């Protein structure tokens, strides 16, 4: 399976994604430069974490207009698989590929911490290696991870099972006390209605091997590979 990892100026998790896919999972992986306007020729595109364009104006707002994003939008429109992690999620919302906005954390602090997530369902191409209701450990590192969308949009996300991951505690409790950043309904990750675009604030690439104390995140990437085979 072919993976492309996009590098924007100040992306800082692209190498982690590349390493997990190429070294741990033996997948054909390459970097895609943000100025590239060539058609996407991989099966999956990953927008990794970081601070693209210094987070100027709004997180992801400038990166959204990089030439490669026109191609990513075209690719997603044809059913190509796209994952946005952290800043990548912010870029996907700014580009309109996913609904909502990632606002400043309600605590007004940059949070860098281990985080439990509840896997809401395993119907998705991105979650099939998990069981519905699994509690996984996947770190977060963000200042703007507070997911917001209007009530109508949230209702649609809930109704269509588009919410894949929610912030919780180790026992899977989802409530205000287990919500690190103020996200509506503890939302940590969503997919689009077609199911081929995923955005999440936690970092599965930072929890993909035991040497990092936790490898719960690797199942996300394995889910995609299994779906493809």
């Amino acid at each position, binding site marked *: 399976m072919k993976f492309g990892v996009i590098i924007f100026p100040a992306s800082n998790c692209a190498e982690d994604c590349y390493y997990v896919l190429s070294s741990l999972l033996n997948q054909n992986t390459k970097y895609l430069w943000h100025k590239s306007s060539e058609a996407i020729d991989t099966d999956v595109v990953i927008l990794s974490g970081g601070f693209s364009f210094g987070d100027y104006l709004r997180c992801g707002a400038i990166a959204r207009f990089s030439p490669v994003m026109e191609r990513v939008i075209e690719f997603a429109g044809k059913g190509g698989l796209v994952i946005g992690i952290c800043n990548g999620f912010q870029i996907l919302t*700014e580009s309109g590929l996913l609904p909502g906005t990632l606002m400043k954390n309600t605590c007004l602090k940059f949070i860098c911490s281990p985080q439990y997530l509840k896997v809401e369902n395993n119907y998705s191409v991105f979650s099939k290696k998990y069981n519905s209701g699994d509690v996984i450990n996947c770190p977060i590192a963000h200042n703007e991870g507070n997911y917001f*969308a209007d009530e109508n949009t949230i209702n649609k996300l809930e109704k269509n099972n588009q919410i894949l991951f929610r912030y919780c505690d180790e026992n899977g409790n989802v409530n205000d006390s287990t919500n690190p950043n103020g996200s509506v309904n503890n939302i940590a990750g969503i997919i689009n209605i077609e199911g081929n675009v995923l955005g999440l604030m936690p970092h599965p690439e930072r929890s993909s091997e035991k040497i990092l104390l936790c490898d719960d995140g690797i199942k996300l990437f394995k889910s995609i590979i299994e779906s493809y085979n």
Partner: protein
Amino acid sequence: MFKANIYVTLKKSIFDPQGKAAENSLVTLGFKNIRNTRIGKFIEIELDENDKNIAFEITKEMCEKLLVNFNIETYRFELEEI
């Protein structure tokens, strides 16, 4: 030429923790009779354009395409002849 003074603010329905934190500090400093502190962005752009109507349309388009996120923000602007 015109200068656009653009004010981008959070919609009224959006909670502004930054505004709240600033307000709490102001109250601590003794400014007791304040409320609804909101923090937004102020953007200045000079337009090399002499027709005010065209300058208006260009500014509006820039706000709609990039400067404002309509999920959470709203905006207004003034054009100043320079």
